[in-house]
């Protein structure tokens, strides 16, 4: 591959903390197991879902689809073309 | 709509047929019903006539579905009606409540028959009058009209549609088997001469529109489904947005929404009584006795009153064309001037209780109950009139 024409897709997982009811669906159904239960509780007393590092997110969107509370969604960002590793 | 699809002229029609034609003249284009004696002929006529005017008739699986479909059709932007008798009327009560709460214009016709229960299906009665007022659970006001002839069934069905659009609620036509199946002359004017109240549509934009924010007459403008307003409506107690008025906060807030909404639903009728109530009065000014009647007994009463006058009794006649809201003020006025009210009804005494209540002890109230199956004879009412002046 030549330099300059590769775009890496990067996904960012957003949790709307105050809507999360800690049901655990997203955590369970994420195929990459990158969602976890947060140790602290939100203002309604639920342990929300959270993601430490969304590098491994493939953008499958399952977490967003199984959420009953509209509390999690995934957005894609397009990074600048990456340099080919030497 | 081509003029030819509307009837115009003089016809020899039954009450049921006249009711159906009144609905069509009023712009009704949806009828959902279930067969029940003596209202079946309304459905039958609507099933033939509605397709002729571009409307829809559907026979539903029961009366609960019938009124539900009528409410749905109204929200779809079409004037809608159903017709039934006592047993079906009972089944419709919950959805009458939904219609009142969501402020859905529509017309419900009850051709009363001998009751309670299955009663006398092919014979006449007036036993549902209080049920018309109180039948659905909760606090509300309703409008009920009482025609006494096929001509009036035609005219008052049009009025019912107009009232239902103006005040946004189900309006009842309370008639009887005798009138439903009676054949008389009905004059139908050309459609261009008929006054129709259109639905009041919102002028606000979808972003600003509040479905239950009333205009100054306490009635909110009504958007139809598909108009782009994306509104919500519910049978739950709701606020001006149409949202259920529940909150995690104090019960006060909930109670306030309930009070505010229910008050408005009641007041929109109460404050407009004068425009809604219609009475037919004769010879009351110098009367000693007033016969108060509605529906078919009012016609028999006319004969009894005639004969009483021939005997020298000063008797007047007050016919209730609108039974609900009840003309409390007029009854109170008359009560102060007369020796008695005489009220024939084909039931064990229902609307007479209202007369008695409003007369407030100022005068006697003499019910003339007739248990149904037949119509009073003039003699029965005449006897009561004679008794009243004794």
């Amino acid at each position: 591959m030549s330099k300059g024409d590769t775009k890496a897709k990067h996904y960012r997982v957003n949790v709307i903390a105050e809507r999360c009811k800690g049901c655990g669906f997203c955590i369970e159904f994420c195929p990459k197991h990158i969602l976890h239960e947060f140790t602290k509780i939100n203002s309604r007393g639920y342990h929300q879902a959270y993601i430490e590092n969304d590098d491994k997110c493939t953008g499958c969107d399952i977490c967003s689809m199984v959420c009953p509370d509209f509390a999690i969604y995934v957005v894609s960002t397009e990074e600048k073309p990456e340099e080919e590793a030497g | 709509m081509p003029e030819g699809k509307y009837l115009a002229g003089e016809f020899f029609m039954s009450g049921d047929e006249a009711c159906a034609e009144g609905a069509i003249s009023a712009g009704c284009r949806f009828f959902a019903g279930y067969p029940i004696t003596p209202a079946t002929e309304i459905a039958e006529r609507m099933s033939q006539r509605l397709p002729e005017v571009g409307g829809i008739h559907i026979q539903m699986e029961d009366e609960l579905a019938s009124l539900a479909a009528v409410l749905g059709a109204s929200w779809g932007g079409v004037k809608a009606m159903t017709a039934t008798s006592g047993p079906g009327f009972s089944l419709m009560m919950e959805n009458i409540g939904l219609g009142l709460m969501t402020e859905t214009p529509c017309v419900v016709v009850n051709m009363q028959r001998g009751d309670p229960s299955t009663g006398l299906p092919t014979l006449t009665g007036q036993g549902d009058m209080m049920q018309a007022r109180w039948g659905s659970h909760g606090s509300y006001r309703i409008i009920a009209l009482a025609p006494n002839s096929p001509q009036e069934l035609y005219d008052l069905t049009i009025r019912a549609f107009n009232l239902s659009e103006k005040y946004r609620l189900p309006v009842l036509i309370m008639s009887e088997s005798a009138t439903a199946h009676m054949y008389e002359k009905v004059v139908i004017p050309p459609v261009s001469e008929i006054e129709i109240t259109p639905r009041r549509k919102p002028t606000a934009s979808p972003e600003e529109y509040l479905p239950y924010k009333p205009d100054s007459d306490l009635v909110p403008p009504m958007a139809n489904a598909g108009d782009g307003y994306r509104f919500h409506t519910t049978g739950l107690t709701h606020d001006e947005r149409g949202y259920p008025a529940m909150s995690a906060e104090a019960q006060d807030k909930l109670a306030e929404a309930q009070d505010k909404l229910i008050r408005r639903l009641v007041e929109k009728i109460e404050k407009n009584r004068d425009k809604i109530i219609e009475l037919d009065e004769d010879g009351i000014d110098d009367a000693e006795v007033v016969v108060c009647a509605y529906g078919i007994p009012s016609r028999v009463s006319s004969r009894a009153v005639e004969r009483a006058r021939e005997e020298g009794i000063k008797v007047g006649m007050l016919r209730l064309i609108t039974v609900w809201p009840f003309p409390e003020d007029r009854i109170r006025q008359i009560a102060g001037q007369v020796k008695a009210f005489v009220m024939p009804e084909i039931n064990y005494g229902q609307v007479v209780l209202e007369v008695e209540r409003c007369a407030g002890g100022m005068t006697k109230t003499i019910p003339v109950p007739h248990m149904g199956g037949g119509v009073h004879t003039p003699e029965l009412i005449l006897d009561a009139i004679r008794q009243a002046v004794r």
Partner: protein
Amino acid sequence: MSKATGDSEKHPLDAYLRTERLPHIWCPGCGCGLVLNCFIRSLLKSGLNLDKVAVVSGIGCTGRVAGYIRLDSFHTTHGRAIPFATGLKLANPELKVVVFSGDGDLLAIGGNHFIHAARRNIDITVLCVNNFIYGMTGGQLGPTTPLTARSTTTRMGSIEEPFNIPYLAAASGATYVARWTTAQVRRLEKAITEALLKKGFSLVEVISPCPTYYGRMNKQASGLDTMKYYRSNSVIKPDIDLKYADIKLNGQIVVGKFVDIERPPIPNL
């Protein structure tokens, strides 16, 4: 997926929700919100004009959906969503009318209307969220509660056979019948989209968790337990003889698109 907006308090589907009423009333682990989520996605995929989509619901937990979706929506009386929807559709055939209600509302008190609407092939889409229980009123037996399952009115276990919804719908004349659980979100979304675009009585039954009542009383302590049960026990058998699509307590759940036939709908446009 949308491009990054940097705003993490606004969900991409918020435009289709009455966000001023969120968070919604459904319990943690309840499937109702998931079905609503799926429904919105299906609507967007269907390409339908959202100003012409009307949602009619009945009474019950699922019935509350009408209050959360930002479309013309009607929260009607118990069991009467289907005839209301019938009137609405007949009055304005341009509308896409969706009945979104629960197993009790649609099949018990509403059972008569269900079979007649299917028989008539009224052009409406019906989403029946089946959680096997009456959730809103606290966990009573419903028409789909499996034999021997516990509920607050059958504490020793139900002695009644439940309805087999796809069998009933197909026998009544429905032209599209599918069942999925909330664990099969992608297929559920596809089914709902198909049902929306299909002319005629189109039913999607969605098996959904009720952790607070049904689950708790029947060895599925959390919504997650129920979702795992669905994931492990669902079997896709679209060609099954529907009389075998019944669901036994904690048993196998047959899912799939069972019926997709052509029959003139009412209204026939």
